[in-house]
């Protein structure tokens, strides 16, 4: 339809209303995604909230030096990595196992029940989930400690004990996301050619052998794609729920880069330092996604771009 030599101007003029449709979204991205990126220069200022950029001093990399040289750097980076690691080792593989288990269930009812029950928690807000966690773990009225009391054990104030925080956070995330994340894998599993299984049965392969030699290899591209897509998110960790769950006594294990940036910026008003910390985190996430994507392209020929 479109002639090769048609000028760009002509092509735009012919479809002018298509560009009109593009406009609102384009302007939105400029206003709410790219304008904040210009605001990243705050990281290089000793930013004064009342004076703005004109009245604030340009300090170069001083904010980065303060963040990276301070005692909070190792703590927040370490915590971010530890929580991301927990996520990667627990919250990432379990949905895969769950998806395989669900597809292996022979009873239609149980299959549907399991999918419905595991998917449901995803739709409960973080505020409610965190509220439930805190209530369940309350030393005086929480169900967990009530059960402990019935077995003659002393109640534990879980929320102020640093040693429990990561496990609580990971369990909570797992409960919320396992069923949701399993869906993509279930779809991939349903796409496997049944003939592969039939051939394997004739060859005498048992259930486990079939899972290991047919099921898993067939969904590896999906696993890799999901991994690459999630790796950036893992570094950002769920600061919205950590903000609700943590308290000064669990900062040593719970304070991650985003929660630190939030406290320093929104609560203490040190915009320069907070932006520097946030930028550091965003860059790490970007690098990780790029590297993960590169590796996955090399290994499996699956990549996001």
């Amino acid at each position, binding site marked *: 339809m479109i002639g090769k030599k048609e000028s*760009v101007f002509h092509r735009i003029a012919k479809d002018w209303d298509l560009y009109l449709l593009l406009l609102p979204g384009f302007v939105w991205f400029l206003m709410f995604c790219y304008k904040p990126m210009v*605001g990243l220069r*705050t990281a290089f200022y000793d930013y004064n909230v009342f004076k703005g950029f004109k009245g604030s001093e340009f300090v170069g990399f001083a904010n980065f030096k303060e963040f990276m040289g301070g005692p909070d750097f190792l703590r927040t980076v370490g915590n971010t990595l530890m929580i991301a690691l927990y996520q990667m080792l627990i919250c990432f593989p379990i949905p895969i196992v769950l998806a395989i288990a669900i597809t292996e269930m022979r009873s239609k009812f149980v299959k549907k029940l399991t999918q419905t029950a*595991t998917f449901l928690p995803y739709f409960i807000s973080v505020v409610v989930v965190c509220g439930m966690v*805190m209530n369940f773990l309350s030393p005086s*009225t929480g169900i967990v400690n009530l059960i402990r009391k019935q077995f003659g054990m002393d109640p534990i104030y879980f929320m102020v004990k640093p040693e429990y925080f990561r496990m609580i956070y990971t369990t909570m995330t797992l409960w919320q996301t396992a069923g949701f994340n399993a869906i993509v894998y279930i779809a991939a599993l349903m796409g496997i050619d*049944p003939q592969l299984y039939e051939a394997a049965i004739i060859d005498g392969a*048992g259930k486990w052998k079939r899972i290991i030699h047919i099921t898993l290899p067939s969904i590896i591209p999906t696993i890799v794609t999901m991994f690459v897509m999630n790796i950036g998110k893992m570094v950002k960790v769920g600061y919205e729920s950590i903000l609700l769950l943590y308290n000064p006594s669990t900062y040593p294990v719970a304070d991650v880069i985003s929660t630190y940036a939030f406290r320093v910026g929104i609560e203490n008003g040190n915009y320069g330092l907070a932006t520097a910390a946030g930028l550091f985190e965003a860059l790490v996430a970007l690098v990780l996604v790029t590297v993960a994507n590169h590796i996955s392209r090399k290994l499996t020929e699956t990549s996001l771009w």
Partner: protein
Amino acid sequence: MRNDGKKQLLGKGERTFNISMNIIGVLISLLCLYPIIYVLSASFSKPLFVENGTVVLWPVGLTLDSYKEAFAKEGLWTAYGNTLFYTLFGVAVNMLFTTTMAYALSKKRLVARKFFTLFTVFTMWFNAGIIPLYMTFRDYGMLDTRSAILFGFAVNTYNLIILKSFFEQVPSSMEEAAFIDGASNFTIFTRIYLPLSKPALATVGLFYAVNRWNSYFWAMNLLTSDSKLPLQVLLKKLIVDRVANETEAAIVTASSTSSPTTVIYAIIIIAVIPMLVAYPFIQKYFKAGLTIGADKG
């Protein structure tokens, strides 16, 4: 088909496997549902039985007083109304911005299409973060305004891409025929593409609605007047902040019919009820949407 082939070959091990998978399924389901069941039961129980551990699965000492007190909480109805407002109008804004842009991006003839696509996708991998976005709202004079919530979060890039891939799958022959009849891009978009994309629109609309209903973070930071707060921010104050302080040591006696704890459980139920009611629809459309998203380019 897979089943027929296997039945005659089912060994004893295979049968044990199948039975244990079903048992595991039931156990996983109970484990996932238990927290919700417990909250529900506790909210209908007398506080004494909740706080001495009698309530484990079923309500004990049935009472509605926790709900009466929950409904009487200051600001609960305002917050509920606000959330309805943000969800309803917010999703309308979301759909307006997302469908139009997704449609334009789905057309190969769009000049600089690659640039525009990268322009949107890039924000998935890199964003400026909390402080610069907060300052942006401040620069626009949008702090403590309802429009900050409605327009500030108008497009979710992931949803945009789901819709774009869906529009790309619509056969171009329909569009070509409409062009010959002299239809404009705008007419083709509203008269052909939107009606054809109802399932995808429902999915994306639900994605947005769930998100609108459940989000608290930016509402908490951007809104300062109580009259504008959505439910989730109020819930944070009522549920999370109260437990975190654990200052009110409530005296619960055998005759009490509600306590701060049971009231919290009642509030939780009030907050999740709409989600539970809508869940069957959500489940249907979400699954479809997640699988479109998975094989996006």
